[in-house]
């Protein structure tokens, strides 16, 4: 029974390994060329990078950096996500609020997050607080926009039902509107998660002396390119893994509705 279920599952969706093998060999040409370039042209070969990677894993600096970067990114994502959902529901539920706030939102939104780095640095100093604060606008806006449009597009029949059931504003939001909008909100959440990681790393590269971004910058300044490349590659893996995990969650949590949104 269990075996049959597993066989069924594999038949439906081939595992990661088999997909990797089934991949075209031609895809390996460009990475191999890059590797050859690294070996021949650059002073730092793949062997040195591997040694440096081993070293940063062993002395724990990679782990510390990863925890610091992901901690800030996820912290910002959690706080910004909540603010974004609340504002999105407020704007989506009431057309009046949405129209009244339009000019304010549209004047704040284009301000690049990098521009407020000096202010936040002076306000909070180094550390998690400044990084999380910088992540906030980047995470609030995508979620706000997706939530607003999803809430505004709630099936009118559902709203009739909620009226029939005599639900209040809070009940209507929590029981009808947000659950119906959740697949779309998650699409915004995925965009925000990617942005949160990017802003966290950016902040660390530019000013904040913690996390993986700072590790890259410090290695560069210490003339230790091997560690720098090791951390850059690790960041790529984290970014890829984060996105893969969120896409998987979306499919898993929302089924067909999520799969539709996953294309965006």
């Amino acid at each position, binding site marked *: 029974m269990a075996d049959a279920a597993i066989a069924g599952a594999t038949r439906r969706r081939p595992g990661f390994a088999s997909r990797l093998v089934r991949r075209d060999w031609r895809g390996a040409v460009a990475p191999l060329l890059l590797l050859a370039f690294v070996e021949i042209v650059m002073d730092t070969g793949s062997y040195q990078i591997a040694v440096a990677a081993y070293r940063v894993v062993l002395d724990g600096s990679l782990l510390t950096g990863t925890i610091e970067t992901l901690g800030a990114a996820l912290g910002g994502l959690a706080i910004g996500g909540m603010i974004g959902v609340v504002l999105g529901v407020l704007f989506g539920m009431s057309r009046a609020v949405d*129209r*009244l706030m339009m*000019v304010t939102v549209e004047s704040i939104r284009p301000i*690049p997050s*990098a*521009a407020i*780095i*000096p202010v936040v640095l*002076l306000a909070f100093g180094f550390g998690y607080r400044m990084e999380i604060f910088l992540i906030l606008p980047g995470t609030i806006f995508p979620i706000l926009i997706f939530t607003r449009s999803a809430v505004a597009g709630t099936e009118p029949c559902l709203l009739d039902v909620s009226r029939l059931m005599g639900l209040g504003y809070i009940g209507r939001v929590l029981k009808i509107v947000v659950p119906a909008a959740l697949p779309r909100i998650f699409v915004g959440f995925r965009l925000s998660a990617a942005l949160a990681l990017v802003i966290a790393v950016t902040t660390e590269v530019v000013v904040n002396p913690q996390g993986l*971004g700072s590790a890259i910058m410090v290695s560069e300044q210490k003339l230790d390119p091997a560690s720098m490349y090791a951390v850059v590659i690790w960041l790529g893996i984290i970014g890829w893994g984060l996105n893969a995990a969120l896409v998987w969650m979306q499919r898993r949590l929302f089924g067909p509705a999520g799969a539709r949104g996953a294309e965006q």
Partner: protein
Amino acid sequence: MRPLRLLWWLASVAVAAGFVGLWQVAADSKWLSPVFFAGPGQAWDRLVAGLVHGTLGIELADTVGRMIYGWAAASLLGIALGSLIGISPRARAYLAPMIEFVRPVPASALVPVAIGFLGLSDEMVLAVVVFGGLWPMLLATIHGFETIEPRLTDVSRALGFSRLQVILKIALPSALPDIFAALRLSVTVSLVLTIIGEMLASRDGLGQWILFAGRTFRPGDLFAGIILLGGVGFVSASLIAWLEQRLLNWRRPP
């Protein structure tokens, strides 16, 4: 319908003005330390003073020039590479996995790498801007090619189009909506990366200017720079939206 919309817009402006007023009150009452927080009045004074008497105009021109240059290069490269991958399954087989592999690396993480190769130079800033701005355009072009109406492909085959003709006459026009969305996205990315590049490489421009204003505790100048950068973001996005509306008029149902 029209006057009503204008009325809503005016009300919305009034709300925004209310927030600016609140900002002024917050600055006047020193809720936040005046070391880093300037009110709108002070920021505006510094903005005008910097533009009229100071070098703010030159800094602005430097930043905008860098942004547009990097953005244009990234967009052209993205369209070219995207067309190549979109039209040729062979190119896709060779290049797509590599792209999947490089894409998740945040562009800002590559600033130190770029510094290693190019030093603290304008070319370094430009390289980072191009790298970051490339992705939206590349993905949008590939996506646009994937969603070409199949009948159009048949037509192009019937007319005996060459590959270049297919790209220029069928694929790119039908990918235009995706491309415009990407243009807007990548102009934002370009601006952020330009600012960061200027901060890290100490090139003249608004990024370095606001960082310096912060370090020397001149909040008026700092906020003037932020307002200016917000303005650059707003104007560039609006210009692209306006262009999109004009060029894609034919796509909208009447």
